């Protein structure tokens, strides 16, 4: 849930590009007698500090079982093994959970891209009775915190038979106020001339939307996709409430449950952690600029 309306940058995507590449500054080397900027002395330890948990995660997932609980514990394992991963795949339904999470995220992202861009376009470009009221209602929902909705949504889903099914995890990710808002802002920033030309040439509004507008909206769609992917893949609270059947567990829920039952098998737990985190880390490394754009536009977590 975000309350980011007041200081939204007008063009978050341009902004993100600027953030990714800071402006040139006059290099003033050697001021402290160093052959490099003094900031390195600060940034190296900070960067290492931020990476330590991930390094520990990978190392531990590859450490032989006996070594982790040894005392004193060595900082680096003496041998690397895939035993932790083997136990993970043997003792848990991790592949099933992975598939469930993939379904939730793929359906969520796909639905978000279609529904939110349609609605965003409608609110940005079309005129129809009730439009402003409808958009105001969307904005108002941004103010409503998640925990206010947990109980009634649970009761609602129980009444329609969604509880304990994967559907319970999927439905809340079909569309969001944030998505509608983001797409509307983007479409408002596009010049209308191209669309008008299309309409004059005899395209229907729907054709104009799919053939002219959507291809131009790629940067905004990337932001929206990342927002939805991060949120749906990492969501824990809602699956925790809505799903008790381990056949419908998402990866995050399965992992958290596993943490309670396999308290001491750290190699296995960390292997599960790697499986849950590595896809997003890899994706972040290849699409860092788009992730930054998403962060600039909103705060996601929580």
């Amino acid at each position: 849930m975000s309350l980011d309306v007041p200081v939204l940058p007008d063009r978050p995507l341009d902004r993100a590009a600027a953030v990714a590449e800071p402006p040139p500054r006059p290099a003033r080397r050697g001021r402290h007698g160093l052959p490099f900027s003094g900031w390195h002395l600060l940034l190296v330890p900070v960067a290492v500090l931020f990476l330590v948990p991930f390094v520990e995660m990978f190392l531990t997932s590859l450490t032989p079982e006996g070594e982790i609980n040894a005392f004193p514990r060595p900082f680096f394992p003496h041998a690397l093994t895939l035993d932790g991963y083997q136990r993970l795949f043997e003792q848990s339904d991790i592949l099933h959970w992975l598939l469930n999470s993939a379904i939730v995220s793929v359906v969520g992202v796909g639905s978000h891209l279609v529904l939110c861009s349609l609605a965003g376009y409608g609110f940005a470009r079309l005129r129809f009775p009730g439009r402003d009221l409808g958009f105001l209602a969307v904005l108002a929902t941004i103010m409503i915190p998640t925990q206010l909705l947990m109980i009634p949504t649970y009761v609602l889903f129980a009444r329609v038979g969604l509880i304990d099914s994967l559907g319970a995890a999927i439905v809340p990710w079909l569309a969001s106020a944030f998505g509608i808002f983001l797409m509307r802002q983007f479409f408002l920033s596009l010049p209308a001339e191209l669309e008008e030309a299309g309409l004059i040439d005899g395209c229907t509004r729907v054709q104009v939307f799919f053939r002219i507008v959507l291809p131009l909206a790629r940067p905004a769609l990337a932001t929206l996709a990342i927002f939805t992917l991060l949120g749906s893949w990492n969501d824990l609270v809602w699956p925790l409430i809505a799903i008790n059947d381990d056949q419908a567990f998402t990866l995050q829920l399965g992992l958290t449950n596993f943490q309670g039952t396999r308290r001491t098998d750290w190699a296995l737990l960390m292997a599960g952690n790697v499986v849950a985190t590595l896809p997003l880390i890899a994706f972040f490394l290849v699409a860092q600029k788009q992730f930054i754009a998403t962060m600039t536009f909103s705060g996601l977590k929580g």
Partner: protein
Amino acid sequence: MTSTLTSPPAAGRGGPESPPPPSARSRRRRTGTALEGWGFVAPALVIVLGLSIFPAIWAFVLSLQEWNGFSTPTFVGGDNYAELVGDGALGGAVLHTVLYTVLFVPSAVLLGLFLAVALNRRIRFVGLYRTAIFVPFVASAAATGILTTYLFNPQFGLMNNLLRVLGLPQQGWLEDPQQAMVVITVMSLWGQAAFTTVIYLAALQDVPGDVVEAARIDGADAWQIFWRVVWPQLVPVTTFVAIYLTLQAVQLFDLVYTTTRGGPLNATETIVYYLWQTAFRELDFGYGSAVAYGLFFVTLVATVVITVQQRRAAAKEESR
């Protein structure tokens, strides 16, 4: 709503055919049909409103009831809200939440500011530093929870291992009621530093370069330039970030669930954790809803008051 862009005409889809307009300019003023507009917005709107405004109203109705999900609900009026006041466990949860907020928000703001200033320069490897600091942003609460319990494990965690090597006394970390919330704060910072840093990086790029240059020519040192020239420009963003982080902090649940489950000795039981327990462990839907509304009301009022004050202060500043 504030759109100045007018809608181009809908090319012959639905609605009565009107005579061809004389010019493109007046064509543009023609309004699309209601059916078409609602066709575009309705699918998403139904989902978003159906899963927010409708349940929000329902939650208020529930908060006036005594209900466990199975029995017939009984109307109790404001009893649930009256109960909030004398609820000792809730009082504890409020204190723990306030403690976390006080620990987390200022440190997140300072860390983000510091990292943004450090990263906002053209030096070698700055891309690598940025990547290292931003990557934890993708870690889920579940993953962060497992990492936290591991790194801060008193027996074989990295933290105590380091302390041992340095010859310092071992700590209880998550098992120590005095330290557990601090550990949770540290790991929250690890995961969320990227967000505040990105916001500050964006704000730093808005600081006009010629003003900074003028200050430099006038003989200001880097420290003076930052606090006298740059910082005043960052105040509005700081207010936004602080409000945003506070709203997040008072809703802390995930990381508590995946690390301490409210312990030790309830030291990390937050408001939302208490709410979750009340509703989904004790099945007290009515009281749970009242807790949720109480929290919502307090945060909403606080946000409005702070925002209004900020606007006033900004207006005063401008009129000077």
